[in-house]
């Protein structure tokens, strides 16, 4: 006896003006980013960033690649729930989530091009002559590249539908299950490896953050961030486009999120206790303070979504924001705040770095807005 299937939803472009005050502002920020990047390519990274040899990885790597891809985990979490756990009711959320994910990963990949110093050699990662499989970054690079392609394939039906290429779409449809499966394995691999990347830093990472459980901690917080991203994207689009808020669906998603966050917190504290790190948590330094802020954000959804709050939209949105912020802060703390590079080194993102990161985020939002207006992404039945 198969599970009760929910009826599918048709999707359609929502149309509307492409040039609005919002898109114009976003475009301006994107242009500013392009200006900064032009300077970067002519004069070098030092001309636009505050990166130095004490802090060789800064806002760009940590936000654009590590956090950006984690927020793009919306794709794999929703795909997993819909097709693996087989909850067709989440179907309306699939395409927007895939779009968010595709844009997130594409921007992560694009940001790598301007962040590395010798971008013309980037293809070396794919070539056996140069490949160094012991490097966790090697695996992350391959996985992210492959996953971006998979996301594009997973999202392509929307494009194929728009251009009426039904034949191709049907053929693709038969193979899609494979890509869905790959599209769950790959992010599991690289999102956990983004945590493993910190292992080689050894004692340069504060012992509160350095642990063999980093892969699992990063993976679980990614799931939380993905679910939060889906919720927030759904919320904003329902408000911006004056559409109903998918309360029940998102409440169930967030219920899963609560479990995952609880798992994260339990694992984190168990590990800290086992390594005797509890006294360090109360030391008077930046790392300990950030740890507690982060922990509070991870725990907040558990409080906000307790009992009746689980289905109250305002609570749900706040919980989703807390989940996303928690994951973001965890990554910033693990890669930057807890990174003890040596005495005397200072780093804070420069205006150039802030402009570029803002530009990337703006580009993602802009592309998302244009895509949902032009491609069949959003569910038709909920169109006003």
């Amino acid at each position, binding site marked *: 006896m198969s599970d009760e299937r929910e009826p599918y939803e048709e999707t359609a472009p929502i149309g509307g003006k492409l040039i609005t005050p919002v898109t114009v502002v976003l475009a301006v920020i994107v242009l500013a980013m392009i200006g900064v990047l032009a300077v970067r390519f002519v004069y070098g990274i030092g001309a636009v960033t505050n990166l130095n040899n004490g802090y060789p990885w800064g806002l760009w790597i940590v936000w654009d690649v590590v956090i950006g891809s984690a927020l793009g985990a919306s794709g794999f979490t929703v795909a997993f729930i819909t097709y693996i756990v087989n909850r067709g009711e989440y179907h309306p959320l699939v395409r927007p989530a895939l779009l968010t994910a595709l844009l997130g990963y594409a921007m992560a990949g694009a940001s790598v091009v301007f962040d590395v110093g010798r971008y013309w050699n980037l293809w070396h990662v794919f070539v056996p002559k140069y490949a160094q499989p012991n490097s966790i970054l090697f695996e992350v690079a391959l996985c992210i590249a492959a996953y971006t392609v998979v996301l594009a394939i997973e999202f392509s039906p929307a494009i194929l539908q728009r251009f009426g290429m039904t034949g191709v779409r049907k053929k693709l449809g038969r193979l899609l299950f494979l890509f869905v499966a790959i599209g769950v394995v790959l992010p599991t691999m690289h999102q956990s490896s983004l945590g493993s990347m910190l292992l080689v830093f050894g004692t340069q990472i504060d012992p509160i953050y350095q642990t063999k459980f980093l892969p699992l901690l990063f993976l679980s917080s990614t799931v939380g961030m993905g679910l939060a991203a889906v919720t927030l994207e759904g919320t904003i689009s329902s408000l911006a486009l004056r559409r109903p*808020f998918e309360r029940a669906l998102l409440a169930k998603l967030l219920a899963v999120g609560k479990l995952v966050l609880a798992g994260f917190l339990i694992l984190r504290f168990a590990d800290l206790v086992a390594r005797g790190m509890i006294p360090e948590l109360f030391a008077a330094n930046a790392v300990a303070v950030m740890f507690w802020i982060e922990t509070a954000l991870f725990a907040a959804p558990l409080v906000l979504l307790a009992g009746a709050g689980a289905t109250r939209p305002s609570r749900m949105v706040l919980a989703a924001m807390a989940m996303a912020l928690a994951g973001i802060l965890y990554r910033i703390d693990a890669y930057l705040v807890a990174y003890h590079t040596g005495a005397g080194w200072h780093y804070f993102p420069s205006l150039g770095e*802030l402009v570029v990161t803002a530009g990337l985020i703006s580009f993602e939002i802009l592309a998302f807005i244009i895509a949902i207006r032009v491609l069949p992404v959003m569910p038709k039945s909920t169109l006003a």
Partner: protein
Amino acid sequence: MGSLPLATPDEDLVTERRFGMKRRSFIQLCAGLAATLGFANNAVGAIFNALVDAKRPSVIWLHFQECTGCSESLLRAEHPTLEKLILDIISLDYHETLMAAAGHQAEAARLAAMAANKGKYILVVEGAIPTGANGNYCKIGGKTAIELVKECAADAAAVIAIGSCASWGGMPSTSPNPTGASPVAEILGRPVLTIPGCPPNPYNFLTTVVHYLVLGKLPELDAKGRPMFAYGRLIHENCERRAHFDAGRFATQFGDEGHRQGWCLYKLGCKGPETYGNCPSIGFGDAGTASWPVGCGHPCIGCIEQGVGFTKPIHELAKLLTVTPPTQFARPDEQQGQGSTLATVGTVAVVGGLAIGAGARLAKNLGTTADKPSTTSKPER
């Protein structure tokens, strides 16, 4: 030259008669002496007046275990020349090499001068004093060096030990020191002014004497009794080849490429880094710049310094006494990198604030639209 009166024909005569030089030349001499002492310009006048007016002080000069090199060095002085000094500035009443008298006459002259100038004469000692064999390794006029130096020092106004031998034992005291060669200070049991060197630069001695005549007291001395104006700095600090040392350019063999280029001689054993003196500053023999051992391509042997000269092998690596790193030397924890600025923190704060505001608004808006139906409705056809 503020305190000097205008020259009159009479004053020209004064300098001519006393010193055999016109007033202008004599003033130049005084300026030279003042420069060596490190005095300011207006001191030239004081030196001028002191030298012109003063009664010539009596000087007794003793020789013991020495090679007479210190006296020879003085003979090569040019400003003033030695004869000007001994004939016009001081009254050299006893000097075994330079005095005309000999034998008993010489000793009688010494005793007479000591009696006539009791408590006012300057005693200069050249050479070490042997203590072995009851002092019998050196006897003059039937008296041992020990007896002579004690006798002469008893009524002296000042005692100056010239040369490394008299200052700390010098070459005769080289291990195993068979004669027990000792410095003046050890024999007298009290510190004395020392002008070490082998030989010392004559101007170190001459300037000390002028300082005493002009100011009535000895110049500032270091812990070993050496005038600070001459022995206050290491040779390493003023060496003209220091830039090569700092850049790591060393001669490793006599005649090699580096040696021919005039590079630093530290690897060849130069003792400049542990020897105090002004050899690189004033050179020897008034023969122009670089007229000193290092300038001629041979490492300094540290002849001035006890424990270095005639003690350490010439080619043994010197110990650097002032290795204290200069201010601009890198520290283990230099401050590097650009931290937060008002602009960047402000931007992050503003953007963050906007985001939080928007988020709060979002939550509030959603709260007011909380009762909208969900999307699990039938699809439209």
